[in-house]
């Protein structure tokens, strides 16, 4: 009886801790003019990197800079700036690194094209191998029959 009560207490405490942990990423309340604007805000803050904690985006980060940059994004949205303008604003200040989705430009051609080139090379190797093997298969029946007779 006593033990079960103790367990319930422990479980309740655990629950309290998890609930607290889930509410951790504090976001300042923001007012939007429309649902579309709010969606754009969410999209943008997810695609922009928080530079203080470089593997988090603006939406996830609780760093001071992330707070300020979220406010900046919000302000620019309300002022009627387009998504591209907002991204441009960030890139002008923090460089391409601020974008989680790298733009296709001269210094990122390798990044964007490499997978396709590798896929092509892979396909070539596969083709050569298949040809080799089918050629081998055509010539093997004799060999296998030879082996069997041995």
């Amino acid at each position: 009886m006593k033990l079960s009560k103790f367990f319930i207490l422990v479980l309740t405490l655990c629950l309290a801790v998890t609930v607290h942990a889930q509410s951790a990423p504090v976001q300042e309340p923001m007012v939007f003019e429309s649902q579309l604007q709010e969606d754009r805000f969410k999209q943008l803050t997810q695609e922009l990197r928080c530079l203080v904690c470089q593997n988090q985006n603006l939406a996830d980060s609780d760093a001071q800079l992330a707070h300020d940059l979220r406010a900046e994004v919000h302000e620019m949205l309300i002022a009627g700036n387009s998504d591209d303008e907002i991204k441009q604003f960030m890139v002008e200040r923090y460089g391409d690194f601020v974008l989680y989705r790298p733009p296709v430009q001269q210094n990122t051609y390798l990044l964007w094209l490499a997978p396709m080139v590798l896929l092509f090379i892979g396909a070539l190797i596969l083709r050569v191998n298949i040809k080799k093997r089918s050629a081998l298969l055509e010539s093997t029946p004799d060999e296998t029959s030879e082996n069997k007779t041995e």
Partner: protein
Amino acid sequence: MNSRIVPLLGFALLVVLLVVGLKIADRKTNLPSPLIDKPVPAFDLQVLGNPSQKMSNESLLGKPYLVNFWGSWCVTCRAEHPVVTELARLNAVYIVGMNFRDESDDALAWLKRWGNPYDVSLTDFDGRVSIDFGVYAAPETFLVDPSGTIVFKHLGQLTWDIVQTEILPRVAEMESGS
């Protein structure tokens, strides 16, 4: 024979890529600023300790100057403080302290306690100007030439080595050029 060498070569290539990647990752902490060779962002800020007076980027035109972002809350700023002090002692370049996201009282107490190496400190209370400078860590230091163009940026703690190899030669060049 060939079938053994090919995977081995592939593995060697992966190892090389990994090493190169790690070497590049080392440099990632010091990202190149997109502001290099660009005009210094516009600012017009109150002078720390003398709020009735303001200073803008326009009024600083005509001489090279250093912009050093600092705050009393910033531990690394305290660590680099002796280097800035030493640089100030040389009187080689005008040093603007950008006191950002800080309470003026705290900032003034900090300067009083550790000494004030800055020719002037400006108050960027809400960090607006620091965003325009693309500051994401403190301290950060920018060297601006007489025409108001950013020629060098250092992210993080300033060391005497950087002062000697990066800042002073550039300042000397500007002085001789003008």
